[in-house]
C-alpha cells in the first residue's frame, strides 16, 4: 500500500467530551493491526487537531487519502474499523457517515483567518505551526522592524480590542511606550469570564502559538521583557496546551534570552485564575496576578501608566493578540480590507442556545445578524420561532427578532442597546422568557460583584430582588419604572465596568419587551411559559389515552388515574417541573 493517508481527529474540549481520545486510539489500533502504520510509517499519520467550531457534531474526523479529504461526523470508536477497511484500504468512503446537512454551509459561509489553522494543525506540535508560516511574523518584526514601525502597522490595520471595549490596540501600545520606565509588562487576558463564550478557549486549544507570537510582537513594540497569561482554571486543556507551547517555543528559540540572535529577551509566565468574574477587569486582574483579592481600583491612572506592580502594563485579549501575527505577516491593508469603516477585521463568535448548528464561527465585522443565525447557524432548532439574540454576555443586551438585520460590529450593536462584548451570542426562541433572562444575568452579576463599591454591591442586589418578585408573581405597579431608575443610578455611579454594565440586560429587555414585564406584573402571567410560579399544568381529558407515562415520570407523585382512563394532576402536589409536559406523546398536558 503506497497511499498517503492522514487522519485528523477533533480533540478540543468538545471532541474529547464526545470520545475523541477513544476514536483516536481506535484508529491507531486498526491501522497498526493492518500493518499500515508499520509499512508506510511516513505516509500514514493520525493527528489530533483543535476545535474546528462544530462541536455539536463531534467526534469529527478528516480522512485524507492522497490529498482527497473526506469528513465524517458523530464518529464513535466502533465505527472506526469500517472506515479503515472500506475507505482507507479499499478506497470507498463510508457514505452514510460523511458530514451532511449544513456542514459545508456552516464552514463555507464563514471567513476564517484566526480559525483557519484551528482544526487543521496539531496544537501540540510547534513544527505544524511553523510549517504553516508560523513565527514568520516574529522573525520579520524582530529582524527588520523597529518598535515604532510595529506599532504603526498595528495602528494602520485598525485592530480593536476583542475583549469587550473595542479599544484600538495600536493606540494602547503606543501609550505604554510614552512612559519612561525600564520595566514594562504585557498581559494576555484569557479569563474569558462571560458565560456562553468560548472563543478564547478554542484559540488557545487549537492554535496556542499564534497567541504566543502576538505577545512576543506586542512585547517588542512596547519594550517589555516579561509577559503573563492570566487564564481561567476552568480550562484545563487550554492551560496544558499553552504550557507545552511555551516550553516548545522556548526550546526553538522564540522565547527566552536573545531571541533569534537579535538581543531581545522575552519570557511568558502563566497565572491561573481562581474563579472570579471581576478579575477579567483590567485593574482587578493585575491585583490577582500580584496574589491579592481581585478588586478594581479607580482609573486614571490607566494601566498603561501604572499597572502590574505599578509598572506600565498593556493588557490585551487572546483574540486581539492572536490577530497580530496575521496582520504582520499579511500586512495592515490586508486586515483592514475585512470589516466596516470603524470595525476592521474578522470576529470569532460563539453561537449557542436554541440554534440548529451551535458552534464557533468567524465572520468579517459588519455581517448582518440574520446571516449568522440562518445561513451559518442553520436557523432555530426544533422548528420554533426566533425571539432574540443575546450578545455580549452579562454586560450585553438582547437584539429582538425585528432587528435581525443589524450588522454585527461595535457601533451597530451599541446603537441597538447591546454590545459586541467578547463575542458570545445566545439565540433565544419563543419559549424563553425575557424577564427570566434578565434575572439570570442579574443573578450572575450580583454574585460576582466584588463588593468594593456600594452602587454595584447593593444596587445589583436590589435589582435582582425586584426581578425575582416579578417572576414570582409578586410584581407591583411601578416596578418597571423602579428598575429603570435604579439601573440608571447603578450604571452611572459604579466603580468598574462590571457595575457600569450590569443593568444592561434589564434596560435592553425593558426596551424591547416591556409588554412581557407588564404581563408578569399586572396579569400574573408568563407569556413564554417559563416562570414556575405563574404556571400551572393540567391534563386535557379528551386527548389523554391513559398511557400512564406522565404518572411514571412525575417526581412528586402528583398525577393519578387508572390505566387507559384520563389522568389528573393534583395541583397541590404539583411542583411544576414540567416532566409530564415533555413526556406526553399525545400533547394532552396543558401549560398555562
Amino acid at each position, binding site marked *: 500500500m503506497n497511499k498517503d493517508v492522514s487522519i485528523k481527529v477533533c480533540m478540543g474540549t468538545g471532541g474529547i467530551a464526545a470520545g475523541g481520545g477513544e476514536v483516536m486510539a481506535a484508529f491507531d489500533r486498526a491501522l497498526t493491526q493492518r500493518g499500515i502504520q508499520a509499512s508506510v510509517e511516513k505516509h500514514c499519520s493520525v493527528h489530533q487537531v483543535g476545535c474546528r467550531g462544530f462541536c455539536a457534531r463531534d467526534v469529527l474526523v478528516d480522512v485524507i487519502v492522497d490529498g482527497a479529504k473526506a469528513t465524517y461526523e458523530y464518529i464513535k470508536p466502533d465505527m472506526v474499523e469500517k472506515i479503515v477497511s472500506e475507505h482507507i484500504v479499499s478506497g470507498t468512503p463510508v457514505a452514510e457517515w460523511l458530514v451532511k446537512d449544513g456542514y459545508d454551509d456552516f464552514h463555507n459561509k464563514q471567513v476564517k483567518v484566526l480559525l483557519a489553522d484551528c482544526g487543521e494543525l496539531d496544537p501540540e506540535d510547534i513544527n505544524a505551526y511553523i510549517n504553516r508560516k508560523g513565527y514568520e511574523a516574529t522573525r520579520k518584526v524582530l529582524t527588520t522592524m523597529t518598535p515604532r514601525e510595529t506599532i504603526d502597522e498595528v495602528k494602520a490595520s485598525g485592530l480593536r480590542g476583542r475583549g469587550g471595549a473595542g479599544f484600538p490596540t495600536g493606540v494602547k501600545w503606543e501609550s505604554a511606550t510614552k512612559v519612561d520606565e525600564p520595566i514594562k509588562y504585557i498581559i494576555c487576558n484569557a479569563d474569558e469570564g462571560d458565560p456562553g463564550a*468560548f472563543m478564547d478557549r478554542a484559540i488557545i486549544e487549537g492554535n496556542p502559538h499564534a497567541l504566543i507570537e502576538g505577545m512576543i510582537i506586542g512585547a517588542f513594540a512596547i519594550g517589555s521583557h516579561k509577559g503573563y497569561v492570566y487564564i481561567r482554571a476552568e480550562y484545563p486543556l487550554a492551560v496544558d496546551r499553552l504550557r507545552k507551547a511555551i516550553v516548545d517555543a522556548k526550546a526553538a528559540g522564540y522565547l527566552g534570552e536573545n531571541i533569534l540572535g537579535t538581543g531581545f529577551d522575552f519570557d511568558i509566565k502563566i497565572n*491561573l485564575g481562581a*474563579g*472570579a468574574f471581576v478579575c477579567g477587569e483590567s485593574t482587578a486582574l493585575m491585583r490577582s496576578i500580584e496574589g491579592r483579592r481581585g478588586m478594581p481600583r479607580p482609573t486614571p491612572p490607566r494601566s498603561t501608566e501604572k499597572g502590574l506592580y505599578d509598572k506600565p502594563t498593556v493588557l490585551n485579549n487572546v483574540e486581539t493578540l492572536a490577530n497580530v501575527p496575521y496582520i504582520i505577516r499579511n500586512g495592515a491593508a490586508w486586515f483592514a480590507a475585512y470589516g466596516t469603516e470603524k470595525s476592521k477585521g474578522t470576529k470569532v463568535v*460563539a453561537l449557542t*442556545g436554541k440554534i440548529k448548528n451551535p458552534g464557533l464561527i468567524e465572520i468579517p465585522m459588519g455581517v448582518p445578524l440574520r446571516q449568522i443565525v440562518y445561513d451559518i447557524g442553520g436557523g432555530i432548532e426544533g422548528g420554533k420561532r426566533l425571539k432574540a439574540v443575546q450578545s455580549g454576555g452579562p454586560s450585553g443586551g438582547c437584539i429582538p427578532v425585528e432587528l435581525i438585520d443589524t450588522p454585527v460590529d461595535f457601533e451597530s450593536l451599541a446603537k441597538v442597546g447591546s454590545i459586541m462584548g467578547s463575542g458570545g451570542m*445566545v439565540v433565544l426562541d419563543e419559549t424563553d422568557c425575557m424577564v427570566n433572562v434578565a434575572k439570570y444575568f442579574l443573578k450572575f452579576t450580583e454574585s460576582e460583584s466584588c463588593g468594593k463599591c456600594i452602587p454595584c454591591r447593593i444596587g445589583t442586589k436590589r435589582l435582582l430582588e425586584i426581578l425575582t418578585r416579578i417572576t414570582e408573581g409578586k410584581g407591583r405597579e411601578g416596578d418597571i419604572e423602579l428598575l429603570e431608575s435604579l439601573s440608571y443610578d447603578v450604571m452611572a455611579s459604579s466603580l468598574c465596568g462590571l457595575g457600569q454594565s450590569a443593568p444592561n440586560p434589564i434596560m435592553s429587555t425593558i426596551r424591547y419587551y416591556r409588554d412581557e414585564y407588564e404581563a408578569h406584573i399586572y396579569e400574573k402571567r408568563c407569556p413564554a411559559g417559563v416562570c414556575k410560579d405563574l404556571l400551572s399544568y393540567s391534563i386535557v381529558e379528551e386527548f389523554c389515552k391513559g398511557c400512564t407515562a406522565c404518572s411514571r415520570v412525575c417526581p412528586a407523585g402528583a398525577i393519578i388515574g387508572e390505566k387507559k382512563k384520563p389522568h389528573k394532576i393534583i395541583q397541590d402536589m404539583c411542583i411544576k417541573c414540567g416532566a409530564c409536559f415533555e413526556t406526553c406523546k399525545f400533547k394532552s398536558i396543558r401549560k398555562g
Partner: protein
Amino acid sequence: MEDKLTAILTRYRENEGNLISIMQDIEHEFGYLREDAINWVSEQLDVPASKFYGIATFYAQFHLKPKGKNVITACCGTACHVKGSERLINSLVKELNIPDGDDTSEDLKYTVEKVNCVGACSIAPVIIVNKAVHGKVTPDKLMKEIKTLKEGPKKEYTDYI
C-alpha cells in the same frame, strides 16, 4: 503534611509565585484549604493567616471544607441555562442528598459544584463528572450517570491524607 507543604513553598520561591498560587497548590494537594496547612504556611512566610482567608473567601475556586469523593460540576452558564441546566442541577442535588445551602453530601461522597461556563457551550447542557465532560445531557442520561456513580467503583478525585 509538612513535606508536601515544603515542596509547595520551594516551588513557589523558584517560580516567583504568589499567595494565590500557593493556595491553589494546597487546594490541589489536599482537596481543600486545610486550616493547619494554612497556619503552617502563614508562619513560614510570616504572612498573617487572615490574608489567606481574605483570598480564600474572594475566589470561588477555594474550599474551606473537604470536598466529596466524587465531584460533579454543573455548568450554569448562559448556554446551559437556556438549555435547561437548572432542572438538571435540581435533580442532582436531590438525588445525591446535598443539604440546602451546601455543596457536599453529609457522608462526603458527593460534591455538586456550580460553575459559570466551562467553555463547551455548543454541547450544552454540560455536566462534568469527576473530570469527564458530558455534553447534551438529558435528565435520563444524568440519572444513568448518577446510578453508575452510586453503584460503580468509587473513583478517587484526588489523594487524601
